[in-house]
């Protein structure tokens, strides 16, 4: 008899929380809202861990553990059900999402304490958790798509949380619409799947696809599906060319940026690609595209990140480039590496955002790094956690980032899909990453505080205050995680055991167990060394520029001139999109649709018909003589006509 691990509890609990807070929260006290908002997520997190325990002891033939709860759509041969699908991959995702999510919830208690719409915030956050877990646990693409759209909705709501601020509202809209473009591709991919395989159920779909051969000869059906899926993923995970919404999404509260736009939602694309690895691994062309896109995005975003001055913007671009890494991993069929990096990234990037939030909180909402500095002494807790995260993301041994990033780079170099170009770009990106991260680090925490002479927040200096415990504790936990989190993926080359790869092996096939020779090991070690070197180089450069010779950066910027401006202004991509797509759309809808169709045709017909009716009725109203018997006459006539018609029809 199969043990029934009640999976449904994991998504439902946050939904309940969201419902309670959303419907009744307005009347609740601050304390109650806090309680409701966190207890349910905490419960779902705890349950997730319990499920994990059971899952490990689950007999081998029962993995993946699938459970259908109800039939949703039944149209002819096609059927979709509300079902949950638990295998190692989704297990990892569930754990990451619930744990990080729970930590960030706790953090938000402190961060949002003084904001309006407190209950609204927690209700949205819980809602997001529900949709994210649905996405992760779905047992067919349709339910996954619900979660997919749902997290989009939640992110829209949360980005526009301060909806009174116009920039926030428009940022929310931007995120929503840009993601839509990708979702269209996703949808079409789903239609193709339905058309050719008649089902969206993972447990039907993947075996069916595995029977097909590899489309090495030339692009075919699977390639098309893969590319379309990649479009969706690019939209959701902010890859080229659809990354533009993520930086603007920083308008939302910082916990939101941490949870949705760093740790979980934006990685949904990676998860989806990994989930569909069966399709991709049979479509080399698609995989190549994925790898290239990932690679380019990583580099591109990293370069932009170098020149940003807004602390959250920097983190946003670094998120994009890290996501690029993950796609690169998927593109070279190193899915487990991608997921590994996803996990570690969730730790340290979440931490980075939270710490940044703590800094902003300390400075009463100041986000510009040029007006920070010397905060090390004022907010030590934040500083130390931030430090851990910075080292982690820069991939310095033995922090978490090192292992995941290094595994990606190694695979990019070694796997049959990879090539040294990918590796080179990856390495360059790693260097840039560590540079801009340490730039941020130095600018924020070292030197002396530049807030006063800049004249912003005139009472800033005295008011720099460390964040409350409720914010520091999650920081601490995440800091620990971003230090040790990577060790479960300790590569053999360093005499460790790849627990992570082995855990995920059943899902992605056993390429992790590829017999690797000592030569391979030495090569891998060499590459690892190089990447660490690059990271240290970045650290050094940042130290030189922003600690020793603080006049240099402006000189360099002046020297580089237009190049620097281009990078600082994000390559004018937004402006380009505006000119290419947005303006034509606005013009067209203004002149053709609005003035022409709506006002010219639709309204006109409505008005004209109304006036005609008025005239007619004006003529007819004299029938209303008020004489009942004349009415009776009309009725009789009408009856006669009806009867006559019926008789006529009967006769014919």
């Amino acid at each position, binding site marked *: 008899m199969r043990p029934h691990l009640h999976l449904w509890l994991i998504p439902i609990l946050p939904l309940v929380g969201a419902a309670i807070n959303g419907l009744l929260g307005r009347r609740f006290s601050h304390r109650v809202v806090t309680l409701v908002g966190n207890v349910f997520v905490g419960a779902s997190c705890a349950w997730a861990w319990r499920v994990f325990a059971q899952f490990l002891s689950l007999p081998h033939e029962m993995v993946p553990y699938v459970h259908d709860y109800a039939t949703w759509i039944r149209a002819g041969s096609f059927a979709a059900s509300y079902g949950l699908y638990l295998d190692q991959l989704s297990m990892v995702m569930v754990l990451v999402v619930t744990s990080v999510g729970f930590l960030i919830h706790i953090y938000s208690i402190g961060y949002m304490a003084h904001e309006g719409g407190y209950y609204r915030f927690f209700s949205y956050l819980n809602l997001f958790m529900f949709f994210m877990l649905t996405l992760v646990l779905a047992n067919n693409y349709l339910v996954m798509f619900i979660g997919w759209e749902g997290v989009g909705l939640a992110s829209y709501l949360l980005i526009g949380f301060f909806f009174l601020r116009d920039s926030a509202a428009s940022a929310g809209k931007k995120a929503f619409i840009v993601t839509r473009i990708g979702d269209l591709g996703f949808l079409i991919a789903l239609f193709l799947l339905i058309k050719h395989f008649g089902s969206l159920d993972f447990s039907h779909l993947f075996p069916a696809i595995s029977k097909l051969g590899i489309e090495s000869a030339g692009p075919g059906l699977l390639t098309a599906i893969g590319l379309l899926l990649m479009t969706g993923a690019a939209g959701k995970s902010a890859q080229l060319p659809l990354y533009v919404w993520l930086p603007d999404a920083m308008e939302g509260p910082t916990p939101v940026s941490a949870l949705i736009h760093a740790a979980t939602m934006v990685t949904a694309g990676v998860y989806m690609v990994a989930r569909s690895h069966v399709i991709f691994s049979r479509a080399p062309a698609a995989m190549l595209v994925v790898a290239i896109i990932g690679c380019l995005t990583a580099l591109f975003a990293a370069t932009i990140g170098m020149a940003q001055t807004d602390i959250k913007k920097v983190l946003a671009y670094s998120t994009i480039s890290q996501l690029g890494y993950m796609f690169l991993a998927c593109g070279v069929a190193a899915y487990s590496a991608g997921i590994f990096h996803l996990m570690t990234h969730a730790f340290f990037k979440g931490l980075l955002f939270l710490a940044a939030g703590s800094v902003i909180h300390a400075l009463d909402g100041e986000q510009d790094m040029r007006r920070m500095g010397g905060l090390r002494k004022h907010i030590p807790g934040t500083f130390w956690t931030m430090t851990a995260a910075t080292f982690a993301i820069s991939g310095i041994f033995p922090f978490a980032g090192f292992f995941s990033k290094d595994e990606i780079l190694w695979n990019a170099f070694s796997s049959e899909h990879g090539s040294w170009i990918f590796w080179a770009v990856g390495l360059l990106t790693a260097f840039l990453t560590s540079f801009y991260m340490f730039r941020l680090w130095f600018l924020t925490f070292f030197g002396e505080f530049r807030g006063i002479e800049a004249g912003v927040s005139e009472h800033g200096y005295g008011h720099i205050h460390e964040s409350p415990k409720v914010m520091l504790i999650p920081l601490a936990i995440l800091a620990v995680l971003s230090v040790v989190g990577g060790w479960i993926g300790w590569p053999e080359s360093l005499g460790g055991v790849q627990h992570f790869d082995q855990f995920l092996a059943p899902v992605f096939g056993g390429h992790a167990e590829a017999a690797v020779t000592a030569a391979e090991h030495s090569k891998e070690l060499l590459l690892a060394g190089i990447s660490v070197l690059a990271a240290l180089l970045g650290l050094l450069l940042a130290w030189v520029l922003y600690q020793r010779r603080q006049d240099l950066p402006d000189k360099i910027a002046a020297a580089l001139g237009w190049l620097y401006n281009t990078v600082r202004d994000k390559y004018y991509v937004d402006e380009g999109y505006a000119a290419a797509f947005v303006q034509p759309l606005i013009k067209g809808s203004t002149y053709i649709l609005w003035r022409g169709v709506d006002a010219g045709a639709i309204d006109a017909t409505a008005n004209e018909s109304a006036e005609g009716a008025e005239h007619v009725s004006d003529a007819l109203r004299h029938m209303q003589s008020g004489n009942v018997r*004349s009415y*009776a*006459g*009309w009725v*009789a*006539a009408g009856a006669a006509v009806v*009867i006559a018609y019926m008789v006529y029809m009967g006769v014919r």
Partner: protein
Amino acid sequence: MLELVLFFVFGTIAVGAAINLLAQRHPINSALSLIVVMASLAALFLLMGAEFLAAIQVIVYAGAIMVLFVFVIMLLNAGEEERTPGSRVAMLLGFPAVVLLAGLVAWTLFARNPHPVPVDLAGRFLGSPAAIAQLLFRDFLLPFEITSILILIAIMGAVVLASPVGTTTGSGSPEQAPARREE
């Protein structure tokens, strides 16, 4: 044979009374002739074996509703109806329509099926109270209840409407009587 004779007797009575209803100028006479129509219809119902309906027809229609009419006529002391210029529409439009109606129906019934099926009297006492009750309280229970509620509302409406402004007592009970009769 006997049925045919009875049919023609009562049918002629009904039609005659109906015509009288129109011809009379005093409402009370019209009311009485309408009662006659109803009585003869009750007889026709009996011919068709709807004995329960026949009784009900007499009790409810003749015994209750028409009593109401007579009451109202008495209370309002309605006299001969005065001659006022009617409406042209009623004359020019209504009458042709009526004629057309009657003509069409007659034509349909005769010209369309020239050999009317004679119905055997096997279903003699088809409408025995028991049978009707079976139908009424089993298949048509919901409509039945709804109509009873309708009646209740009608009673209240009648009381409210008919009672002089301010008071709600007054000419209540006569209006209520026939309505209550159904329950």
